[in-house]
């Protein structure tokens, strides 16, 4: 007996609901409009800034209407607009894209040439029209490409463009401007017949997800939304980071499903579940204004830098510009100065990054590659994270132990150990985008500095990004993280002309005891000495030392080549007591 009861198969096997054949079918459009409508009131409360982009595409009121570029200053009302977040693709793909340039600007004010419109833009127009919205913002068409002035000015407004869009279309399913995102491949259909309940039969559909090249074995960890999002090219690109972070409402067109991200709620097509999303940039901003806790924003920034650093760019010099829209909003909220990716009032923590993905196999190779101001490949100074792709930050807070929550095991009571510390940067165009490209940036420090003479050995256990340990003259043990790869493990490593520059100190830390144990195990010579030291107890006031490894490039000028920490249990600040204080300029 084979009764094909609709739905019986799904209920029995507890599968996902079948996605629609087309992403922009009537059912999906109705669903999207319903969710946007339900969410409208909260959305309007939060986004009432009155910002309007300089230019928008006017799609007209009929599908047959021509599309034209307009200057919004000509409008007498605040237009509701949709923004598009998509990948341009390789330079050759991007070159085929219709763009507004100074030579096509007047033509685009009349009408966009319909034959030049690429697939991704066609699809975005179709979605915008389906949502009954008349205006659409697309960077390639609303910013004058090739006009440096317009580009610099508009790129720092991008944060506001996405923050204030009615909704942002995210083209997860398209890897470049030539690919659309509204084509959905058919699933493979396989018959099912229950051998336990003869009455249950039907068809199950197998829908292929993006390949798992770099995510071996992670398949089971991925939900259908993860597949669509985390494995998309869109999610790998740098420019899309702030576009996504700042958009309050997003429609994500994945390869297999449409997903809605509405403020703090994620909903997937044909899936009854509503999943709360992690806090957004806007949530953090709200917490700052309601609670006045500035460290929340600085913490949020460090997390942002960490997630953003590995995003890919066609032009590496866009590393800072591609996030400058978000930085501008943050700068206005925290009223702090920004120097090449780091906030002045959080300078110490901002300098103590560790790079995990390293290039350059030895010190001299690293120094050769270290870009100096004036060179064509200069992105940021040696002390900025912006030159690197994979980062981690130490768990440090300025807060005292009393102000930390019980579950917060960060090293606390962070304080300066240097006599003076200041930083400046010279943006390429301070008037148009002070948070964009930098020509030069420096740090001036007066602090304790000593040569690192001793050879280093690898710290065990190996974690991502090898650390090295050096026993200093007074028996203190420094844990060093280099900005280059270093030799393969088990080899000793001697650095040339490297000094340790003390920046700060902190108390406590969750991992330090574990690390100390491993250091002691690895280097039996030091056990007796380390045992003599008092291990840090809760409430201990002995301090861990934190600083940078620096290398001279002439005239008291140095570049950063790594960072170090001396845990309190193996010396802390002791080694610097007999040290002289020096003035250092870091490039």
């Amino acid at each position, binding site marked *: 007996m084979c009764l094909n009861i*609709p*739905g019986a*198969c*799904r*209920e*029995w*096997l*507890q*599968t*996902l*609901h079948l*996605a629609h054949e087309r992403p922009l079918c009537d*059912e999906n*459009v*109705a*669903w999207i*409009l*319903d969710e946007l409508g339900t969410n409208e009131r909260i959305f309007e409360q939060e986004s009432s800034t009155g910002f309007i982009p300089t230019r928008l595409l006017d*799609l007209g*009121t009929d599908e047959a209407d021509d599309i034209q570029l307009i200057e919004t200053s000509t409008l007498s009302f605040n237009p509701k607009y949709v923004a598009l977040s998509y990948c341009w693709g390789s330079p050759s793909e991007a070159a085929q894209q219709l763009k507004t340039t100074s030579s096509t600007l007047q033509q685009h004010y009349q009408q966009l040439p319909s034959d030049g419109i690429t697939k991704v833009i066609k699809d975005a127009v179709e979605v915008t*029209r389906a949502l009954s*919205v*008349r205006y659409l913002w697309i960077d390639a068409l609303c910013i004058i490409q090739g006009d440096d002035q317009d580009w610099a000015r508009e790129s720092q407004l991008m944060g506001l463009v996405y923050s204030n869009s009615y909704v942002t279309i995210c083209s997860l399913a398209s890897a470049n401007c030539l690919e659309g995102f509204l084509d959905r491949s058919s*699933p*493979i*259909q*396989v*018959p*099912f*017949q*229950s*051998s*336990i*309940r003869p009455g249950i039969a*039907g*068809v*199950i559909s*197998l*829908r*292929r*997800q993006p*390949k*798992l*090249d770099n995510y*071996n*074995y*992670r*398949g*089971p*960890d*991925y*939900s*259908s939304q993860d597949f669509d999002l985390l494995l998309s090219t869109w999610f790998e690109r740098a420019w899309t980071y702030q576009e996504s972070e700042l958009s309050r409402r997003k429609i994500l067109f994945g390869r297999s499903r449409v997903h809605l991200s509405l403020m703090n709620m994620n*909903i997937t097509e044909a*899936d*009854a579940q509503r999943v709360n999303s992690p806090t957004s940039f806007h949530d953090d901003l709200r917490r700052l204004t309601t609670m006045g806790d500035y460290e929340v924003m600085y913490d949020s920034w460090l997390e942002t830098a960490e997630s953003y650093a590995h995003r890919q760019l066609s032009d590496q010099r866009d590393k800072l510009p591609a996030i400058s829209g978000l930085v501008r909003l943050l700068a206005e909220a925290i009223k702090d100065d920004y120097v090449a990716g780091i906030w002045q009032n959080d300078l110490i923590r901002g300098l103590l990054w560790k790079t995990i993905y390293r290039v350059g196999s030895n010190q001299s190779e690293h120094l050769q590659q270290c870009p100096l101001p004036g060179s064509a490949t200069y992105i940021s100074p040696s002390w900025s994270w912006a030159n690197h792709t994979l980062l981690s930050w130490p768990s440090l807070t300025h807060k005292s132990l009393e102000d930390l929550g019980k579950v917060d095991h960060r090293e606390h009571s962070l304080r300066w150990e240097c006599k003076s510390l200041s930083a400046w940067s010279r943006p390429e165009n301070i008037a148009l985008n002070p948070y964009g490209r930098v020509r030069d940036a420096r740090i001036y420090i007066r602090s304790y500095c000593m040569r690192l003479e001793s050879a280093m050995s690898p710290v065990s*256990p190996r974690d991502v990004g090898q650390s090295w340990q050096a026993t200093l003259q007074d028996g203190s043990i420094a844990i060093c993280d280099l900005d280059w790869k270093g030799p393969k493990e088990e080899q000793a490593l001697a650095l040339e002309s490297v000094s340790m520059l003390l920046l700060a100190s902190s108390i406590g830390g969750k991992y330090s005891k*574990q690390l100390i*144990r491993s250091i002691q*195990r690895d280097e039996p010579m030091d056990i007796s000495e380390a045992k003599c030291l008092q291990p840090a107890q809760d409430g201990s006031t002995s301090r861990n030392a934190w600083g940078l490894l620096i290398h001279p490039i002439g005239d008291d000028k140095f570049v950063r080549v790594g960072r170090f920490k001396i845990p309190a249990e193996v010396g802390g600040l002791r080694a610097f007591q007999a040290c002289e204080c020096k003035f250092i300029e870091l490039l």
Partner: protein
Amino acid sequence: MCSLPATAKHHDTGSILCERCSVLAFDDQIFRDFTEEDDISSLPVFPYDGSLLNLELDYEHTDLFPELPGLKASAEAGCAFCAALREATSETTLPNPCHIRFHLRYMWSPPCAQDFGLYMLLANMSIIDDEDESESADEDKSESADEDKSESADEDKSESADEDKSESEDEDGDDDEEQDEVIPIATRSVAFVVESEGKKSKMLCPHLVSKYPRRLP
């Protein structure tokens, strides 16, 4: 192992599948012990213990990348799954040429989707550079090796204590003794999420379509 001849077989419903891919028809026999005979309405009760239930399919196919002639012949004979698997494999970055051994498994209620039952079909590819790869490769063993690798990869990521590390070293040690002669040089996966038609949820309701008819601004 050579590719099997693609015997096209048309089911009453569904895509055309070859004989080898007919194993994709899910067999719920394993749930017999967890369901009450008389209770028509009850769902299979899977004793969820926090671990993933892998339902290994009786499927093994080895093919030569990048052409993948075995899958190609079957796809050309009409098999929809061979075609999809070939397409997915072609998009993967692999040493060229290399042998790939394919295994399939269904996953029941994986950690990312505990509200679901039959969630995903995972096609695992073991990349083997050994030309005369023998039939002796024991499926179970190669599977357990896969899982061990997965675990130790996870350990690498965590800031794990040295205790963990020594444990994993022990495991690796045991592993080496048991390991087969054909050791994959790399592995890749392609996932197929399982869907089926069911009761209309809110977002599938036709009444919304009449509430929001297509209209232009």
